[in-house]
């Protein structure tokens, strides 16, 4: 098969040397065929990804009335505003804290589920996935009621212990805590299911070898489980970091960015200044600011993944 390909290639090259490239030759090339076969997907990506991306870059360079090109003007304006830097800080705290705890809780729960006998495991897996499969707009509404300062289940329960009432969504510290908590609740099952799959792919014999080598449970996790799951952990964390950075619905429903913009993250603030504040170019600039932050994170995380590639 390979020989034939080489011969074809040589024939094409020879023909090209003799006379100018004809249309038939171009169409007959493997690369041309491959291009046409992937063209539908290229068009789809161009339509759904490239066009909006390029358009938002274009928007970010216009003035508020979208009539005049202002270059980096919107960005320079943002850099001078305290609220913007607070949103950057809050977005980073929100994303990093939420991803860290989602990963930690997902890892611990995955271990528990992994150790449940196979018979009952399906049931638990299904139940633990519920937060992730309920549309977040709906489940966040339920959380909104749970956080209600006057009549909520949380404050009612805490009152038995002499605590509260806590102004969950009105106090800036508690409000930040609440939006992160709901994000963790919503996202941890995704980590759990990914880690569970990774755990199942670690051969039992490695644990047995480690047990004979003298490893206790913690050393087995540290020296066997974590190194074997490094790639999954890295990819899951990156994926979740992107999604969490871009989160909108939870903050929007719970606090709308309040109190006093203290819980705003990029997406909600972009929505506020862009849609509610009728300054779409400025909103686009806020959204675009996520790109370099995520790109740096992605480069660092994926660099190690490709380096470790096929270790096993």
């Amino acid at each position, binding site marked *: 098969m390979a020989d034939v390909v080489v011969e074809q290639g040589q024939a094409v090259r020879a023909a090209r040397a003799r006379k100018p490239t004809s249309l038939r030759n171009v169409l007959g090339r493997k690369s041309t065929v491959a291009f046409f076969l992937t063209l539908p997907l290229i068009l789809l990506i161009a339509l759904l990804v490239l066009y909006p991306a390029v358009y938002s870059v274009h928007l970010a360079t216009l003035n508020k009335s979208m009539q005049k090109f202002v270059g980096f003007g919107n960005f320079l304006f943002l850099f001078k505003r305290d609220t913007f830097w607070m949103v950057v800080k809050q977005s980073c705290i929100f994303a990093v804290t939420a991803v860290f705890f989602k990963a930690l809780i997902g890892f611990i729960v995955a271990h528990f589920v992994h150790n449940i006998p196979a018979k009952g495991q399906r049931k638990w897996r299904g139940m633990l996935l519920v937060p992730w499969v309920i549309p977040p707009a709906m489940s966040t509404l339920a959380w909104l009621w749970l956080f209600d300062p006057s009549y909520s289940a949380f404050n009612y329960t805490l009152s038995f212990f002499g605590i509260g009432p806590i102004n969950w969504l009105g106090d800036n510290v508690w409000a930040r805590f609440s939006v992160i908590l709901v994000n963790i609740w919503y996202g941890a099952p995704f980590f759990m299911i990914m880690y569970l799959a990774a755990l199942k792919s670690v051969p039992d014999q490695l644990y047995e*070898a480690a047990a*004979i*080598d*003298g490893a206790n449970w913690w050393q087995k996790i540290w020296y066997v489980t974590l190194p074997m799951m*490094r790639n999954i952990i890295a990819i899951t964390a990156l994926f979740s970091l992107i999604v969490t950075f871009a989160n909108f619905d939870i903050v929007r429903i719970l606090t709308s960015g309040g109190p006093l913009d203290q819980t705003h993250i990029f997406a909600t603030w972009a929505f506020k200044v862009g849609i509610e504040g009728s300054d779409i170019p400025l909103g686009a600039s806020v959204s675009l600011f996520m790109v370099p932050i995520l790109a740096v994170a992605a480069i660092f995380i994926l660099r190690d993944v490709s380096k470790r590639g096929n270790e096993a």
Partner: protein
Amino acid sequence: MADVALRKVVKRYDDVEAVRGIDLDIADHEFIVLVGPSGCGKSTTLRMIAGLEDISDGDIMIGGDVVNDVPPKDRDIAMVFQNYALYPHMTVAENMSFGLRLKHYPKAEIKARVTEAARLLDITDLIDRKPKQLSGGQRQRVAMGRAIVRNPKVFLFDEPLSNLDAKLRVQMRIEIKKVHQKVRTTTVYVTHDQVEAMTLADRVVVMNKGRIEQIGTPNELYHKPATRFVAGFIGSPAMNFIPCRLEDVGGTLQLRLTDRIAFALPPARAARYNALPRTDKLLLGIRPEHLTESHAHLGPGVETFDTVLDVTEPMGMETLVYFGLDGTPVCGRVDPNAGATDGAPMRLAMDLNNMHLLNEETGIVL
């Protein structure tokens, strides 16, 4: 180093008894091979010695101490797995030193032990590689190295050569034997390959259906099998089992195989089998090498008969011949120059001095 003893060891999985009351004494420095077909309980037995499986009943002793409830790490054993079980993210040196590092050995001693083990196994050049960069045979050496550096009381091998190709398997078999000759650690080795068992073991333990069928040196098992299972399991091609009965004809004891084939038993055999009831259903057990071509100078106790060969298999140094005796398939081994051809008649000689007589119902060798 230490001796290992199993006392009435039982392993149950729910209602199924995988190991049914095993008694076994393994002496210090001894190389014991557990052999048997799939599902006979040999791997389970090994894993119980390792502490990777709990025992349902009985006692396991290592160096005189009962270790039933001792975790694997405190049993001072090392195990080599079928799939090597090397840590893929560690180099060869890190793999080998892992156990020592966990026990906080001094760095200099770890290095010395790893270097020595690597030299012994001829893997010094591979010490900085990851398992992915090694061939199957090299990985197996590293797995053995990991066991050796620990200097344990007992080595446990769980079918370590099953994943290697035939040629490499022979090489590694010799390596394992050499290593054992050097380190002299008590070794329990599990395999389903009877050739491995015969070539490596000081004593072989043949297991079947969760029980020990027979324990003995390779020679004992081959020449004096206790049961039909052992007789059939050890040896390749397997021993022939031909239905037969004893007859008294004119004061001599005869072995009748078919209506037209009956042999007078040699005196020693006749004396041994004379007390048996003539009504018993018996089987003649005869190995293929004791069914050869007939020639002019046959010794006492060697009887000839004529048959028609079904199939012949030239192996180079010998030719295997297959024929039927009243519907029972029989295999013999003849000289490649004896003229054996498919479908041709041939006169064969049966050496009754090496025959076995078995009770067909109990399977016991009489």
